[in-house]
């Protein structure tokens, strides 16, 4: 299979505008004849649903939660990037583009990233027009901060609740269209299969999570915006319902899955406290702007932080990376935390934590300033740990946070299944092997507000799409498959809870396919995942019935898919004979322990094709061509 990116050539600065000029348009009167299914109403799906409805399409939108206002996007804290250059500190579209390509360790498609940087400014304009109360300076203009390894201040924020404000803005835009009759909202629904007719995505089968009923929905195109798969690790910063199910079912229907091994570990999360832990809480990395990361110089130093004198502290990020200091990118910060803990210099009860200390910032700027910047984060930290970060340093440790891998899409955000578009974290497109802070919100909204409204039109206008009936064999087949899966899950009646098996899977992946990977560990994953899958299908215990509100059943379905997906993730990691960004194979590192790429052989996207339950998946590649940036070893010294 040849993967055609459909990215236009020519000067990168004008690619997107030239592309837009060439896209076929759907006549306004015809737009109302098209039904678009949007699965997922986070930033990507919510912005898509609102914008498509504004254009006149009929949108049917689906989400798992009781309201679209609750999607996982709501939890994003730190901010959203845009190349506005309001602070006059040298930012530009080019620089945001360059930083994103470099931050992604040169494993993203240039054309997509440039477009993202170009669109970024319009997102902020739109969000302000919608009344988002972004942070402002005394003069009433928008405030910016520097974030996650950027040397310019290009991050817009609304306290520590940026994702919330952006999501509520999409949600309100959607609700306006609900009132206008252009969006029909289906909350508490889980998509369980994609329906393909004549080779094109024409509908979905979804379970009504309240009644258990399986529903068939037809449309002229399907937009998937179902988020990332970080919860394959059991413990992550993702919301509890985040899953790979929708993407995985599409994969099984023919959509290629790209770079599943690219997962991001976030350096600043609250450490695990015990076996009951159900999820991990992120402490926004904006904290690294003012907090200093350190561990004791001595191994096994159990003194309280305050008792460790200055000259016995190792501010290891400042020491190793004098120019970026505490602001090195996430993968670098995470790996260094693991390294000092592996050396026995970790702190806290488990030794799996490092300090993030605000003492100096409070001395310098005063408590009031720090409180204004981070008050809600400090309060959250105190709530969870019962420690006061104003007086004792925070303890943090890396955790799974984001997944750069996802369904393969072309420049139009269309997957390898015609008519199936994939947006937001669910696709693989813009972040390469590592995502920069504050760039996921930007990407989700770019995809939904400013890319899909154009590209979907090109598809619809140029494709014959006769009406399909809900009685079509493809619908029946998808529905009976979903019904059979439910029956099987409820019939196992084993002795182990689904959470227990999920926990075991998570542990296996965290140890072997997490921050540091090696061939032996990855082989172990490949061997043990099928064993766990067997154990699941023989011994899982799923209580309750099919025709009911049954959260155990929902969870079981998602874990069943994680158990299939985990194998692909490890296989992808094992096949990529290099380290890049979030994928760090210990065999491939520089003398300074940085990821060592192999640009000769691996400067490509790996996209996997599903070949059946017992067959090996097939690996396809899309070569990455860099015409505008020079590939370089990342250095943050």
């Amino acid at each position, binding site marked *: 299979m040849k993967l055609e990116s459909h990215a236009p050539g020519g000067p990168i600065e004008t690619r997107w505008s030239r592309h837009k000029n060439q896209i076929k348009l759907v006549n306004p009167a015809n737009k109302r004849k098209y039904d678009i299914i949007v699965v997922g109403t986070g930033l990507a799906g919510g912005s898509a649903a609102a914008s498509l409805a504004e254009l006149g399409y009929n949108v049917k939108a689906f989400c798992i939660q009781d309201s679209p206002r609750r999607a996982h996007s709501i939890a994003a804290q730190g901010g959203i990037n845009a190349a506005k250059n309001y602070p006059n500190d040298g930012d530009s579209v080019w620089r945001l583009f360059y930083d994103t390509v470099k931050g992604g360790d040169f494993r993203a498609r240039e054309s997509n990233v440039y477009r993202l940087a170009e669109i970024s400014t319009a997102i902020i304009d739109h969000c302000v027009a919608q009344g988002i109360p*972004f942070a*402002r300076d005394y003069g009433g203009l928008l405030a910016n901060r520097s974030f996650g390894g950027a040397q310019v201040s290009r991050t817009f924020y609304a306290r520590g609740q940026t994702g919330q404000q952006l999501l509520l803005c999409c949600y309100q835009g959607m609700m306006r269209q609900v*009132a206008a009759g252009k969006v029909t909202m289906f909350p508490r629904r889980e998509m369980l299969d994609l329906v393909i007719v004549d080779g094109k995505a024409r509908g979905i089968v979804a379970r009504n999570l309240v009644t258990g009923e399986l529903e068939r929905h037809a449309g002229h195109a399907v937009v998937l915006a179902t988020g990332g798969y970080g919860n394959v690790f059991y413990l992550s910063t993702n919301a509890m319902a985040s899953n790979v199910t929708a993407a995985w079912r599409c994969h099984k229907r023919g959509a290629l899955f790209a770079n599943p091994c690219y997962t991001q570990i976030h350096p600043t999360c609250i450490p695990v406290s015990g076996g009951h832990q159900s999820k991990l809480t992120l402490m926004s990395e904006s904290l690294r702007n003012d907090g200093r990361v350190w561990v004791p110089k001595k191994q096994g130093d159990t003194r309280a932080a305050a008792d460790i004198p200055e000259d016995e502290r190792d501010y290891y990020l400042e020491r190793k990376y004098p120019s970026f200091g505490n602001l090195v990118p996430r993968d670098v910060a995470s790996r260094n935390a693991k390294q000092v803990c592996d050396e026995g210099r970790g702190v806290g009860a488990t030794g799996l934590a490092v300090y993030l200390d605000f003492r100096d910032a409070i001395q310098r700027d005063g408590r009031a300033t720090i409180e204004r910047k981070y008050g809600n984060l400090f309060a959250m930290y105190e709530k969870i740990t019962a420690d006061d970060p104003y007086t004792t340093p925070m303890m943090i440790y890396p955790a799974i946070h984001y997944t750069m891998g996802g369904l393969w899409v072309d420049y139009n955000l269309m997957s390898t299944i015609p008519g199936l578009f994939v947006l937001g974290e669910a696709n693989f497109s813009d972040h390469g092997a590592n995502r920069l802070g504050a760039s996921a919100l930007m990407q989700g909204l770019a995809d939904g507000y400013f890319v899909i409204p154009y590209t979907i039109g090109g598809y619809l206008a140029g494709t014959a799409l006769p009406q399909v009936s809900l009685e079509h064999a493809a619908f029946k087949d998808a529905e009976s498959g979903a019904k059979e899966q439910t029956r099987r899950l409820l019939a196992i009646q084993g002795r182990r809870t689904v959470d227990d098996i999920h926990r075991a899977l998570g542990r296996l992946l965290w140890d072997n396919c997490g921050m540091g990977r090696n061939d032996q560990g990855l082989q172990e994953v490949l061997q043990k995942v099928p064993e766990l899958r067997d154990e699941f299908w023989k011994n899982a215990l799923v209580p309750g019935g099919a025709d009911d509100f049954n959260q*155990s059943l929902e969870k079981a379905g998602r874990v069943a898919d994680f158990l299939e997906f985990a194998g692909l993730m490890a296989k992808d990691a094992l096949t990529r004979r290099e380290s890049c960004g979030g994928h760090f194979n210990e065999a491939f590192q520089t003398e300074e322990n940085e990821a060592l790429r192999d640009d000769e052989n691996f400067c490509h996207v790996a996209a996997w094709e599903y070949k059946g339950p017992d067959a090996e998946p097939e690996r396809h590649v899309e070569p990455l061509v860099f015409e505008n940036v020079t590939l370089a070893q990342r250095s943050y010294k």
Partner: protein
Amino acid sequence: MATINLTLKVWRQKGQKDKGRLETLPAPGISTDMSFLEMLDVVNERLTLEGKEPVAFDHDCREGICGMCGAMVNGLAHGPERGTTLCQLHMRHFRDGDTLMIEPWRARAFKVVKDLVVDRSAFDKIIAAGGYVSASTGGAQDANAIPVPMETAEEAMDAAQCIGCGACVASCPNASAMLFMSAKVSHLALMPQGRPEAARRVLAMLRAADACGFGNCSNERECEAKCPKEIKITHIARMNREYMKAVFGSARE
């Protein structure tokens, strides 16, 4: 790690038509580091292994921002701590031997779906009635074209951070949605971008709330006391002013 033993009295209700009842469930050996929802997870794991149905409860982010979780704990929405959602409530706030009564939000406009899960779609209806700025994608001017005083933006943000959990309704003797509604009205009325529609918005949202069966405000202030985001009832006052302006026509600017 300290542990405590608790007795739970949990509301069990199969569905909307079922009458429902309290069930007593022991919760021994609970670590004080757990969150309230993690405590329920532990109880549910045990129920599952005993072949019983676990307690249904809504949750997602587990970090106090999605607004999905919530239950009455000993008669208090989200439990005893101020400014805290149920998922952020930690077990260190309870004592060994405590009995906890756990019930769903109760309000005419929120029907029980199952156990602790309720239907809050009425909130979406209120927002759909006018809780937005009618600015379609694509036409916006530069974001810095209209300066907004920092204090105004901050005040708008105080209101905008409502998570829509429903604790205000559940705490109000009249099951009123005034605090929820006023948070949105106030946020958008403060921002210059929200002004053009301010009058229409407040009228439409109030009408929608009535239609959904929410009660009136009689200044009990229970909503403010139990709001996990500590949203102030001064926003209700602002909404009332917006309403007066709308009725008397002066808000059409």
